[in-house]
C-alpha cells in the first residue's frame, strides 16, 4: 500500500498539496483537484455529472491555502493521529445520521456530509448500539412470543451478544476493506473521477447501519408481515444511501463490472439484515384459532381442541 501511495502522490502532486490530506501509510484521499477540505455544509451539488466536476472558483483558491495547513498530520503511533478521526461536533454527527436516514436522491452522502472529515465515532458507536439493540430486542421478542407456555423458562441468552458483536463489527470493517481494495484495483485500470478513502467508506457503511436500530426495536412485534415490511423499508433506505455513494465511483467502469459491484453491495447488506432477523428473532407462532374437531361417535360429541 505504501508503494501505491507514493505512486499516486507522484501523479497528483498538486492535488495532494491542495488537499493536505493525512499522508499516512494506510489511507489516501485522491479526490479530484477541486475538492476542498471544508467542514461547512454550504454547498449543494447539482445532480448528475456536475457533482464530479466541482470547479475551483477563484474566490476559494486563497481559502485552500489557509485550510491546507489546518489538518496537521502526526505519525500513526501518536495519540494525536487518532484524534483527527474524532474531530466532529454533536451537530455534525446528528446531521450525518439524518443524512443516512433521509437520503436525498442525487446527493452523495460522502460529498454532502463527510466532506473530507471522516470520523470513527459514528461507525463505532452506531455498531455498538446496534449490537446491543439486536441482542436485547431479540431476547424481548422471544420472551413475548413464548410467554405463557408452561415449558418455557426465560434465559437471557447472553452468548448472542458476542455473536452479534462479531457479525456486525466484521461487516462494518471487512466489507469496506474489501470494497476499498476492489475500487483501488479498478482505479488502476480505469481512471475514475470519483474515489473514496478507506475511512470514508467505513464512515458510509457505519452511518448506513443506523436505520437498523429502530428497525430492530420494531422487530419485537411478533407479526411476520410487519417484520418483513420493516426490513424491506429499512433495506431500501440504507441501500439507497450506499448505491448513491458508490454508483458514481464505478459508473465510468465497464457496465457489467459496475452493475455487479453495486449488486454485491446490496446483496451483502440484505444478507446481514435477513441473517439478523432469522438468528436473533424466533419465528412468531402462526396465530391460528384452535380447530375444534367434533368426534362423531355414538357416545356423544367430544370436542378436541388443538393449540400450540
Amino acid at each position, binding site marked *: 500500500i505504501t508503494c501505491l501511495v507514493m505512486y499516486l502522490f507522484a501523479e497528483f502532486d498538486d492535488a495532494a498539496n491542495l488537499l493536505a490530506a493525512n499522508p499516512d501509510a494506510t489511507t489516501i484521499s485522491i479526490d479530484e483537484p477541486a475538492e476542498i477540505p471544508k467542514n461547512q455544509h454550504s454547498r449543494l451539488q447539482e445532480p448528475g455529472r456536475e457533482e464530479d466536476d466541482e470547479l475551483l472558483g477563484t474566490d476559494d483558491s486563497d481559502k485552500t491555502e489557509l485550510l491546507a495547513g489546518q489538518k496537521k498530520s502526526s505519525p500513526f503511533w501518536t*495519540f494525536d493521529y*487518532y*484524534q483527527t*478521526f*474524532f474531530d*466532529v*461536533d*454533536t*451537530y455534525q*454527527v446528528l446531521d450525518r445520521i439524518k443524512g443516512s436516514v433521509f437520503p436525498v436522491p442525487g446527493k452523495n452522502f460522502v460529498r454532502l456530509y463527510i466532506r473530507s472529515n471522516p470520523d470513527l*465515532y459514528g461507525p463505532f*458507536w452506531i455498531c*455498538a*448500539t446496534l449490537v*446491543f439493540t439486536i441482542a*436485547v430486542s431479540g*431476547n424481548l421478542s422471544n420472551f413475548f412470543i413464548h410467554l405463557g407456555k408452561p415449558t418455557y*423458562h*426465560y*434465559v*437471557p*441468552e*447472553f*452468548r*448472542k451478544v458476542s455473536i452479534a458483536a462479531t457479525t456486525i463489527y466484521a461487516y462494518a470493517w471487512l466489507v469496506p476493506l474489501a470494497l476499498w481494495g476492489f475500487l483501488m484495483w479498478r482505479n488502476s485500470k480505469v481512471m475514475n473521477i470519483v474515489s473514496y478513502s478507506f475511512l470514508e467508506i467505513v464512515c458510509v457503511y457505519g452511518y448506513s447501519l443506523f436505520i437498523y436500530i429502530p428497525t430492530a426495536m420494531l422487530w419485537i412485534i411478533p407479526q411476520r408481515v410487519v417484520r418483513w415490511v420493516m426490513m424491506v423499508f429499512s433495506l431500501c433506505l440504507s441501500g439507497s444511501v450506499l448505491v448513491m455513494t458508490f454508483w458514481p465511483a464505478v459508473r465510468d467502469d465497464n457496465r457489467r463490472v459496475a452493475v455487479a459491484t453495486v449488486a454485491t453491495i446490496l446483496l451483502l447488506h440484505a444478507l446481514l439484515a435477513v441473517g439478523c432477523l432469522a438468528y436473533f428473532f424466533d419465528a412468531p407462532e402462526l396465530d391460528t384459532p384452535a380447530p375444534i374437531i367434533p368426534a362423531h361417535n355414538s357416545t356423544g360429541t367430544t370436542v378436541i381442541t388443538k393449540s400450540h
Partner: protein
Amino acid sequence: FPGLADVSISQDIPVEGEITVPVGSQSPDDDYSTLDEPVKDTIMRDLKAVGKKFVHVMYPRKSSALLRDWDLWGPLVLCVSLALMLQGGSADSKDDGGPQFAEVFVIIWFGAVVITLNSKLLGGTISFFQSLCVLGYCVLPLTVAMLVCRLVLLAGAGTGSFVIRLIVVGAMFAWSTLASTAFLADSQPPNRKALVVYPIFLFYFVISWMILTFTPQ
C-alpha cells in the same frame, strides 16, 4: 556593568542584616513516618478514602475529591461483587444462560476503558485513571440494585416482583448515569458533551439489562 567599574568594595565593611529562613520542612519527616505507623492506620486511611468516595457517588455534588484522589479499589470491589451476585443464575448446562463472571468483569472494565478513550479522543481534559475511577465508582447504585433484586427474588419471581425490580433497576440506572455525568461533564469540550454522555448511557444500560434479566434457577 561598565558604570560600576570604578566602584570597589572595601574588604573591611561588615555585612549585617537579618535573614529569615521559613520554618518549613519538618513535614517530610512526617510523611516518611507513615512507614512506622501501625498497619491498621494505613488500611483505615485507605478505607476511609474509599468510603468517602462512595458517599460522593450517592450524593453527587460538584466536588473534585473524586477526581483528585483517584483510586481503583472501589471499582474493583464493586465489579467483583456485582459479578459474583450475577452468578447462580440460569447457568445450567445450556449455553444461553446469563453472563459468566469473566464476561461481566470484561464488560465493565473494557467498557470503562473504551469510554475513557472515547472521551479523550474527543478532546476531553480528564486523565485516563480519573475517568476510570469515576465510571467504576458510579457502578455503586447498580450494585445496590442487584442486591435489592436478589432479595426480592428470594420472595418470589412473579409479575409483582418483576415490576419492583424494573422500578428499582430503572431508578438506579438513572442515578448512575446522572452521577457520572455530573462528575465528567465539566472536562469535556462544550459542543461535544452529548457525544461523550451517550456511551456512558449505553454502558450503564447494558449493566442494568444484565441485572434486570437475572433469573435464578
